[in-house]
């Protein structure tokens, strides 16, 4: 099982890294544009303090916290892969760009994600009151 997985990664992982990165950047980018529009809609409520606090209360509910954790993953992927893309454009680490996708965008990204998502899950979802 493990060898089958490592064989698959060895066979396709490096070959398709660029293609996977390309789609990751597009899909996360589209999702973030959608979030941006919703977010601007929410800050409009600053004109009515009561409505704004009610909105913040709604967003503290577990369902929205799950969404926020998803947002964190989306932002981290887009940002780290964006840094990788900029480095490639500047000619930094050209020969290592596939490794940079898996180790930097996915690997470092996973560590950053867990560092943020675990406290969010514990304090925002497990210990959620009212």
């Amino acid at each position, binding site marked *: 099982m493990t060898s089958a997985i490592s064989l698959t990664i060895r066979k396709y992982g490096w070959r398709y890294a660029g293609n996977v990165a390309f789609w990751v950047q*597009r899909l996360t*980018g*589209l999702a*973030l*544009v959608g979030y*941006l*529009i919703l977010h*601007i809609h929410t*800050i*409009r*409520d*600053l*004109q009515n*303090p009561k409505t*704004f*606090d009610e909105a*913040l209360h709604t967003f*503290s509910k577990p369902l929205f916290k799950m969404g926020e954790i998803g947002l964190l993953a989306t*932002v981290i992927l887009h*940002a780290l892969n*964006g*840094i990788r893309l*900029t480095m490639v*454009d500047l000619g930094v680490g050209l020969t290592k760009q596939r490794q940079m996708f898996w180790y930097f965008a996915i690997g470092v990204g996973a560590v950053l994600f867990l560092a943020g998502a675990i406290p969010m899950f514990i304090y925002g979802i497990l210990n959620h009151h009212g």
Partner: protein
Amino acid sequence: MYGRVINWYLQRITGAALLVLLIMHFWVEHFTTEVRAHGLTFEIIQKRFFANPWFVAVDITFLIVAIYHGLNGLRNIIFDFGWVTKPMRIGVTVLLIGLGLMLAVWGIGAFRGNPHLNPMSSKGAQIAAAR
């Protein structure tokens, strides 16, 4: 510089700026002492805006840079598929600029011209004086 080079360059520059602004945004809205104690509330935001005009300046900058980067990225994706040919491209660009301006005006309106966040307005002065 050609238009496309400027477009490519600006997408990188705004991306780098967004990285810094987003980390600041995360810090301010989630990790400051007052937010950790009570959660984010309208009152916390209002106090900041009254105390320090830089908050609204940074927020509006962030808003505009994010809208530019997001919609420019969307434009790159649309054109990259190659369905939109030459004469229609200008239409898509104009449409996205229109959407961007609308979002910018909409977002800026949440801060500017909002009596609850402006200490100079009569309502803001009343709220500030009540503290």
